[in-house]
């Protein structure tokens, strides 16, 4: 008799039963599962994009652009403060991450530092005795602002993707400045890429008609911006005031529509603050043109015919219907704090995904059959027991994948096949040990016991070293690599259970039932 405590028997049987229950949803369709009782598990194995088809985009937030913007506004603020305090300066310029200026009178140094620090607390000021000042943001502030820009970007990306109606998008932060967007089932991400490629910074600004707009030569207080229109083959430029009347932050809604000539437009609605700003500006400037600027491009430059006080406005600008729809979507979702760069794009069509699943399944089944046949030839009865363990290993592996929502990828399938090969390893170790103990003259039962006990340290040492390697693979790897690491590590852990507890249990039952006198090993 091999004695196994009752609690261990119950635990082993319990784990196997739970495995069967949790793996079963994978054999039913979603509709069928709806009719099952509520306690019944419903989660299935999540397939990676390489298996179910879909688009994968890796985006990077361009912080340099954010920093540049902030330096420009810091330079503006510095100019205003120094003028107000009547401190003379020259050579005010922005560098990559700093604003530099030189005081006309080095004696003003302390005063200048104090007033500038009062105006903007998060800056650091260094100076030379000759009166040169360097203003920069301190490390903490920069990292805080990066963090908030990333969080805000993720939110805007999510809103834009949601608005397109893509099913179950997966959007996640990656590292310090990246966003991973996964869109299952989408095999042409062109539209999403276009939508994400725009910052969508919307501004309403006055056109300065007193100067001529020459590209590349802005006059003080103005920007020269290109428009969508062409005249005699040249793009029309406008000289536009730097100061915005009102910007996209004050929008509450934007919808595509048509004007009285049936041309696509976007109608927008401001919030109360935006409506007031816009109302005041239009009331005082009837007859002047203003520009609707999106990402530093003039969409249109209409003349103010009458004050617009209700906060409703229309944007026209020779759009196609699709462009008007996308523009409205971008305005509703809001502007990105910084431009996004697409670092990586991977798309898998549904056909290839289905093929991969089919060939993966086929190859796995063949692998199981070959291993099972080999194990049976090598260990006959004990080989058959090891094969039962392999079947339960796979079953529990899929149950674990279903419950944890871990993603199954193509390399993950390779991981499963490798796990099958390795799952029998523990049984090989045990069986070889039992054979050895019998040769050394032990009685059958004590040989079995010794075989299991002695093989334990080896199994634990060899599997733990393997787990360490796979763990690092998970830590450093990205999508497909992680898929492999997940199935392999779960497989190894489960194999320790199936090979040790399950097979020993089966052997014990068999011995108690048959009472054999010698081992068929």
């Amino acid at each position, binding site marked *: 008799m091999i004695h196994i405590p009752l609690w261990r028997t119950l635990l082993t049987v319990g784990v196997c039963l739970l495995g069967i229950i949790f793996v079963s949803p994978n054999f039913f369709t979603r509709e069928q599962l709806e009719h099952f009782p509520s306690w019944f598990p419903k989660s299935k194995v999540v397939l990676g994009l390489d298996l179910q088809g879909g688009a994968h985009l890796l985006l990077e937030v361009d912080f340099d652009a954010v920093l540049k913007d902030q330096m420009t506004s810091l330079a503006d603020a510095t100019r205003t403060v120094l003028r107000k305090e009547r401190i003379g300066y020259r050579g005010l310029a922005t560098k990559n991450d700093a604003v530099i200026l030189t005081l006309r009178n080095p004696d003003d140094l302390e005063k200048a530092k104090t007033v500038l620090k009062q105006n903007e607390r998060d800056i650091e000021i260094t100076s030379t005795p000759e009166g040169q000042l360097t203003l920069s943001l301190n490390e903490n502030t920069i990292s805080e602002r990066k963090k908030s820009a990333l969080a805000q970007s993720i939110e805007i990306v999510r809103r834009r993707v949601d608005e397109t109606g893509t099913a179950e998008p997966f959007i996640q932060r990656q590292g310090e400045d990246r966003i991973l967007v996964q869109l299952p089932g989408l095999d042409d991400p062109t539209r999403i890429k276009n939508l994400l490629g725009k910052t969508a910074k919307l501004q309403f600004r006055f056109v300065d008609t007193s100067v001529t707009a020459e590209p590349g030569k802005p006059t003080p207080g103005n920007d020269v911006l290109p428009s969508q229109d062409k005249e005699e083959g040249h793009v029309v430029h406008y000289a536009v005031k730097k100061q915005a009347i009102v910007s996209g932050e004050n929008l509450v809604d934007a919808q595509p529509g048509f004007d009285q000539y049936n041309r696509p437009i976007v109608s927008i609605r401001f919030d109360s603050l935006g409506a007031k700003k816009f109302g005041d500006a239009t009331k005082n400037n009837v007859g002047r043109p203003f520009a609707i600027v999106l990402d530093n491009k003039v969409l249109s430059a209409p003349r103010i015919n009458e004050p617009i006080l209700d906060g409703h406005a229309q944007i026209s600008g020779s759009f196609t219907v699709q462009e008007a729809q996308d523009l409205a979507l971008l305005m509703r979702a809001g502007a990105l704090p910084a431009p996004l760069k697409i670092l990586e794009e991977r798309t898998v069509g549904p056909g290839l995904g289905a093929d991969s699943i089919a060939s993966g399944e086929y190859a796995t089944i063949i692998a199981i059959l*070959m291993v099972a046949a080999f194990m049976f030839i090598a260990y006959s009865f004990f080989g058959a027991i090891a094969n039962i363990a392999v079947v339960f290993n796979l079953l529990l592996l899929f149950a674990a994948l279903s419950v944890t929502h871990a993603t199954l990828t193509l390399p993950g399938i390779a991981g499963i096949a490798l796990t099958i090969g390795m799952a029998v390893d523990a049984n090989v170790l045990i069986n070889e040990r039992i054979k050895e103990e019998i040769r050394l003259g032990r009685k059958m039962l004590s040989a079995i016991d010794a075989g299991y006990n002695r093989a334990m340290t080896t199994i634990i040492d060899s599997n733990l070293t393997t787990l360490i390697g796979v763990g690092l693979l998970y830590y450093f790897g990205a999508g497909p690599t992680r898929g492999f690491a997940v199935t392999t590590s779960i497989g190894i852990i489960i194999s320790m259970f199936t090979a040790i507890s399950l097979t020993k249990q089966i052997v014990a039952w068999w011995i108690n039932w048959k009472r054999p006198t010698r081992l068929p090993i």
Partner: protein
Amino acid sequence: MGLQLIPYNANYDFVGKKNFIFGILMAVAIVCLGYIFIVGFNYGIDFKGGLLLEIRTQQAVDISKLRSDLSGVVEGEVTLQEFGSPNDVLIRVERQPGGEEAQLAALGKIKEKLGASVDYRRVETVGPKVSEDLIRNGIFAIVWALVAMLVYIWFRFEWQFGVCSVITLAHDALIVLGLFCIFRLEFNETAIIAVLITVTYSINDTVVIYDRIRENLRKFKKMPLRDLINKSINETLSRTILTSTTTLLSLFGLYLFGGPVIAAFSLPIIVGILAGTVSSITVSAPLLLHMHLRPDQMQNSTDAEVL
């Protein structure tokens, strides 16, 4: 009654032939190393950046016409490869000069040229930044895996075991990397996985043998070290061969029936596991003879370090 692959009283003299075996394996490793440094890898899209498209067309594809069509719209080299069937083509385009935007612009041009009738089964564009990260992470993963295993084995056994196992693993990794170099296999992120699988698998075999050596060191305190190591290798030989066979069987299943992508992935693993099995048996354990495993007076008399 089961089959006995290895006779149970096997007594092959692995330690006696160690210099011969070390010589061969060292030569193979040096050839691999030479290839890696002189010829270099055939880097794929993951590490080089660029574009990759797998398309399926209605009719069989005229590869040479397609190549000249595409060469006209993008910069750099365009390689085409029939992928499984005459209607399936794998298109690889070198990384376009410029940053991330340039890659996406090239993709647009290619799609325009191919027209709407083709079915895009897979499209990948990788910009320069991502490929740098992937290379760095791949190297980190391999190096840290080696270090972590060294520490674990040091902790569970003795430092000598750790050092010998890492030497063995480095050899195995080199063989797989050499395979990629010599046969110009595309070196992608999956290649790093293949190396790591090789390493983790080989350590498994090595640990099983070391475990037996540790056990025998306690059991046979007077046995000469070279006999003890030989005995341990032979006692575990049956298990080492059996487990490698089952793993190789399932990998062959993948290689033959898993489709082109899985096949490309499983081939280097098959070679790696073969190399790992051989080196675990013939290198990792005999190498221990050169380490001071026991206090000096107990070392084997044939060991040169003992006076």
